[in-house]
């Protein structure tokens, strides 16, 4: 009896122990899940905070204040354009509007001695005041704006200039067009250079190259290149393209070539991964039907891995598009308000525009910086979404 009692005791204690262990495992699991959820929530919070802040700051710049003023074209305003409007308004209407008056008169002499009522862009301080932000207007000027508002001569309109103007020192007429066109040129060069070279290198390395120490060294180096800080590519670009080959500084050509150096390893690696995923049966099938190695690769294998190649390319391009550091070195962080016309003319890019605006002293630039960031983010979002869509559409399961 006592023996049996003891045995059941042992059993019970073992069972207790097992229950304890089980409980411990469950707790462990719950804890792990809690950690994961916290991490996810934290990431989401940061994202929401970042976007919220950008949108909160940036949406105001989508509207711009306009003033209805009478502009007089005469000898006086031809000599000194600030006199084209009422004295009190000289500094309230944007300098960007008034300074072109002498040229207008020169181009169209019939304007002389006429007046014209128009909606003119207001200066940044007026714009800030109308939007309720900090400004440097004097009390008298504030009163004047208030009065004009009552008379219906002040209007907030959609800020089209933000998309159709180039950079300016005057926040009210500063826009992103030159930078956006510059980005297009640069990315064009980058794709043109890095896509064919990248895909062909990957095909050679993966399908044709013998497996020896040389190819292995190259492989290690390519993987290494993908992780190199981008500023080093800028130094390389400066040394090779500008100093050695004599290409024009600050040009889209040099910027694009520099960024393609950076994008190449990304494209090579993703193409190789895609090639590896194609089963050998495809190659062998092609060869068995009498195709040459080149035919097998280009007609059978490569078409199968287009989604992988495109995904890699698009992600590489997105990275290149957001890159600033190497472009500082090749002189693309500069005041360049006109969009480039050839690959050799001076150009700037969107991230560079954001960088210059963010360090400008005028307060009105901060909302424009936020808006430019939103535009860049939107473009990157579209690119990444395109990569995902393409992958899902063309993806093949073996």
């Amino acid at each position, binding site marked *: 009896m006592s023996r049996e009692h003891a045995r059941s005791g042992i059993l019970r204690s073992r069972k207790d122990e097992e229950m304890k262990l089980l409980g411990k495992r469950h707790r462990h699991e719950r804890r792990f899940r809690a950690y994961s959820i916290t991490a996810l929530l934290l990431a989401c919070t940061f994202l929401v905070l970042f976007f919220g802040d950008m949108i909160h700051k940036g949406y105001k710049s989508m509207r711009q204040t306009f003033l209805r003023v009478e502009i007089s074209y005469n000898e006086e305003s031809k000599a000194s354009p600030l006199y084209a409007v009422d004295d009190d308004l000289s500094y309230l209407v944007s300098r960007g509007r008034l300074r072109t008056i002498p040229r207008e008169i020169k181009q169209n002499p019939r304007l002389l001695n006429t007046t014209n009522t128009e909606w003119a862009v207001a200066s940044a301080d007026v714009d800030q005041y109308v939007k309720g932000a900090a400004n440097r207007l004097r009390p008298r000027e504030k009163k004047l704006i208030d009065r004009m508002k009552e008379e219906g001569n002040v209007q907030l309109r959609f800020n089209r200039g933000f998309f159709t103007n180039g950079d300016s020192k005057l926040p009210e007429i500063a826009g992103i067009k030159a930078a956006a066109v510059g980005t297009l040129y640069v990315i064009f060069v980058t794709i043109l250079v890095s896509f064919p070279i990248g895909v062909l290198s990957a095909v050679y390395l993966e399908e044709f190259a013998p497996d020896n120490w040389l190819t292995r060294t190259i492989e290690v180096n390519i993987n290494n290149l993908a992780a190199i800080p981008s500023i080093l590519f800028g130094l390389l670009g400066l040394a090779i393209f500008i100093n050695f080959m004599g290409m*024009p500084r600050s040009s889209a050509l040099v910027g694009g070539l520099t960024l393609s150096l950076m994008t190449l390893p990304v494209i090579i690696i993703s193409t190789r991964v895609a090639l590896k995923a194609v089963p050998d049966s495809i190659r062998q099938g092609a060869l068995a039907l009498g195709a040459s190695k080149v035919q097998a690769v280009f007609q059978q294998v490569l078409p199968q891995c287009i989604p992988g190649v495109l995904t890699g390319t698009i992600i590489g391009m997105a990275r290149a598009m957001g890159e600033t550091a190497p472009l500082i070195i090749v002189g693309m962080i500069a005041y360049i308000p006109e969009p480039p016309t050839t690959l050799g003319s*001076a150009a700037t890019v969107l991230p560079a525009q954001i960088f210059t605006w*963010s*360090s400008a002293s005028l307060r009105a630039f901060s909302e424009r910086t936020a808006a430019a960031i939103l535009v860049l983010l939107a473009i990157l979002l579209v690119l990444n979404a395109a990569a995902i869509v393409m992958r899902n559409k063309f993806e093949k399961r073996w």
Partner: protein
Amino acid sequence: MKKTGKTMAVMACVGLVAGLGQAREQIRIVGSSTVYPFSSAVAEEFGATTEFPTPVVESTGSGGGHKLFSQGVGDNTPDITNSSRKMKKSEFEANVKNGVGSITEVVIGYDGIAIAHNVDNDELTLSIDDLFRAVAALVPVDGELVANPYEKWSDINPALPDTAILIYGPPTTSGTRDAFHELVMHKAAKKYKELYEPIAKKGEYQAIRDDGAYVDAGENDNLIVQKLEKESHAIGIFGYSFLEENGDRIQGAVIEGVSPEPATISSGEYPISRSLYFYVKNAHLGVIPGLKEYVDLFVSEQMIGDRGYLKRVGLVPLPADQRAEVRKNVAEAKALTAADFE
């Protein structure tokens, strides 16, 4: 596949050819990030009001600008370099060596360096010595150099506030930092010349403490302004134009009894101010279209005058007689000589 490959190659070649071998139409300007806002403002006006294309203005820092400028004469070298300090002798020699030859120096105005803090604080009055003791790595105490022991402003001078020393300032790559070294550190260290001479050339001591009281805040001055708004006991060092633009958030400290204002900076009463310059490569005058016109516009009354446009952007104008002299130098394309650097 083959066809597209060929087209791509052809297009790439066309692109390469289009990019190269064309004569430069635009003026190229490099140099100081402090002068950059003024230089690009003039460049914009120049592009908007004349038939010439807008000059390209790069912000490379004063040193970087001089280096690019002195590479030689020709299409692929800049026409103008901006500088927040005078050209150094070594830089002039590099120019001579590379055949740049005739260079005209143009003074455009002054820039004050503001020692700023939160607008809600009481007025802060500092001497150059106070400032030096707050930021130097080694300070003289009882006739001996010791590692900076000051933690609070009141440790330096009982009249100063009883708050921890926290200074946000420019990094070593910045021209503002150079000016701070020269106008504050060197000036204050001179008083203790016999102490500093053994460790610094000519007693020009400029090592800044690294125990956390001085924070290198990067090149973005807007960031410093935001810090000052949040941390009321912090002090920031940056260009005067940021103080003017953010008058609702920050105020300038009174230095040696003078507060930073256009009048005191222009007259030289405010002790931490410097001249801003640009240098023109005379060999490019008449070769690069519009270069002469750009320089003329820059030194015109409507730009650097008492009521000029650059004043609205934050430049402190030169006195009228000096402006006249600058214009005379420009008109004559007066070249720098080795004697100017003695």
